[in-house]
Each structure stands twice: as C-alpha cells, then as structure tokens.
C-alpha cells in the first residue's frame, strides 16, 4: 500500500491538532473571567498558534498545488471522489478565512502580533470600517461552519475504514 508522503502526513496531523485545538481554545478563552490568570495568556497563545498554523497551511497549499494529488483508491465511487474533493476545498478555504479574519481582528488597530517576544507580525490591513467587528463575526461563524466540515471529513474517513474496510484512512497514518 502506498501511503501519503511523510511530510504530507505530518503536516496533515499537525494541522488537524492545531485546528481542533484552536477551536476549543477560542471557545474557552471567550468564557474566561476578567480575573482569570489565563485572560491574557490564552488569547496570546491563540494568536501565535494561529499564525503558526497559517504558515503550515500556506506550506501545505503550495505543496498541494505543486505536486499531483494522489490517485483515489480504485474502490472509491465517483460520488465519493467528488464529495471528498469538495470537502477538502471547503476545509482549505475555511481554514484560511478563519486564520486571516483572526489576524484582521488583532491587527485592526495597526498593532502587530508579537511572536514569542522575538519578532512581530506587522499589521497590514487596518482601513476596513469596523474591521475588528466584521472580522470577528466572520472568524466566529466560519469556525463553527468549519467544524461541521471537519466532522464530515472524519465521518468520511471512518466510513472508509470501518464500513468499506479500505486503505483511505490508513494511507494517511
């Protein structure tokens, strides 16, 4: 059985971990009390890990566009190939929209995002009217939407593994 290349697999699982982690971190940090010791730390981690994920996703996108996609398994039905392709495209777009909108919230006041106290990712776009509010709504609702597609993606993988008993999931492991 030919698996996905090792870097594809590593980056896939790393982004899976970060995307799901960031989603729940985002949910949790908004519920924090002002006097919680995490009140400032959690958003700082959220922003820095978000930018880490943005660079990983940019790398994955470049990789995906430069190398031919792995051929579907022979038992994959045409509708499965089509659906999985649509879900993959939505996952990519969704993740990028969330990452960029998150960046636009934080940098709307023309202040960059500091990474580990080493350097700063500068603010680039600040001129949108009520930028932090619009970006905030996009960030929130696209994140909920993305989780639905993440669920579909997982259900698809498990369906191939458990019901079809094929190698779809295994070649990503």
């Amino acid at each position: 059985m030919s698996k996905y290349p090792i870097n594809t697999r590593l980056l896939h699982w790393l982004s899976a971990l970060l995307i799901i982690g960031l989603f729940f971190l985002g949910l949790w940090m908004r519920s924090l009390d002002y006097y919680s010791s995490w009140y400032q730390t959690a958003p700082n981690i959220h922003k820095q890990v978000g930018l880490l994920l943005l660079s990983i996703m940019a790398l994955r996108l470049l990789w995906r566009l430069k190398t031919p996609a792995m051929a579907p398994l022979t038992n994959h039905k045409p509708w499965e190939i089509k659906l999985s392709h649509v879900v993959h495209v939505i996952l990519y777009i969704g993740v990028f929209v969330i990452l960029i909108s998150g960046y636009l919230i934080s940098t709307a006041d023309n202040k960059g995002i500091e990474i580990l106290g080493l350097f700063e990712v500068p603010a680039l776009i600040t001129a949108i009217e009520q930028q932090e509010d619009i970006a905030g709504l996009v960030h929130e609702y696209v994140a909920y939407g993305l989780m639905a597609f993440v669920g579909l993606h997982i259900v698809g993988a498990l369906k191939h593994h458990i019901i079809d008993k094929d190698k779809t999931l295994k070649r990503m492991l």
Partner: protein
Amino acid sequence: MKKLISLFAGALLLSNAAFAEVEKYQIDVKGMHAFIEFKIKHLGYSWLKGRFNDFDGQFDYDTKNPENSKINVMIKTASIDSNHAERDKHLRGKDFLEVSKYPAATFKSTKIISKGKGKADIHGVLSLHGVNKEVVLDAVEIGAGNDPWGGYRRGFSATTMLTLKDFGINFNLGPASEQVEMLLHIEGVRQ
C-alpha cells in the same frame, strides 16, 4: 379694541424678546470641536480612557435665564474607541454595550439648576443599553464668543459618574471598576 391690540402686540413683543434670547446651537461635529470621553479604573491601579467618535446633538442656550437651556446628544455606541481593537470589539459585544441591539445612546436634559460662576447641574435622561435613567451632569461653561470665521460659538464641559450595573452592564471588571466617569467637552456653533 385698541386695548386688545396693544395687549396682543405686547404679548407678541414679549414672546419675541423671550425667543430672541434663546440661542440655538449645533454641536460642532463637522469640525470636531467636541469630545465624548470616558474613564474607568483598571484594576484600581490606573485610569483607562476612551471616547466615542460618532455623535451629534444640539443645545439651546438662554442668555437671560440659563436654567431655561436645553441639550440633546445622540451617541453611536459602535464608535467606542479605546485604542485597542480587541478591547473595542469586546466593549461593543454582549458583555458591554451590545451595539447591534442598542446602536444609539441618548441624553436629553430635563432641567438645569444654575450654581453660579458658569456652573450648573444638568439633569436629564440617559438612555444607554436599553435602560433610561436620570443622571446629573456637572457642567461648567468654558466660554463663548465670535470665532474668526464669521460664526459664534459656545462651549462647556460636563462630567458624570455612571454605575455600569445601573445600565445592565454586569461584566465583572473588579471592585474598582464598577463605575465609569463620562466627560463631555462640547462646542456648539450658533445657528
């Protein structure tokens, strides 16, 4: 008949005279010579300041009887600006101003008590976050006179202390930060 006419003329004259003394002003938001600011303690250790950038209003000033003056101000709550995007977003959200539900705050004066030396208590109703509440602005006249561009201007400052809970804003910022001081610096151009 003659008596009636003179009485009528007298009444007309009187009302005209009274009318002439009430000057109408538009707050100078075009040239932005007006500022609506707030300050609130941060943890009890320092002051946090911010302002509302988008507002409008008018006032009537009775030169003979300042207690007969009036003021109306309308503030767009979404224009809150504390020079920090994430905080401003939080302040506009459900924990504080809920600007999508309550896009405007208004103040309408109901009575003015002169305290002499250009000072006055401006009583009025503040409508904020869906709550109407009587507040008193502690006001002081700064000055009035001709401007260099052919107009006539009058300005004053006013402060008032608001308790956030009174306006249904219950987010816990700590015991030192339950009240916010509003500061208004208003300049009007006579119409």
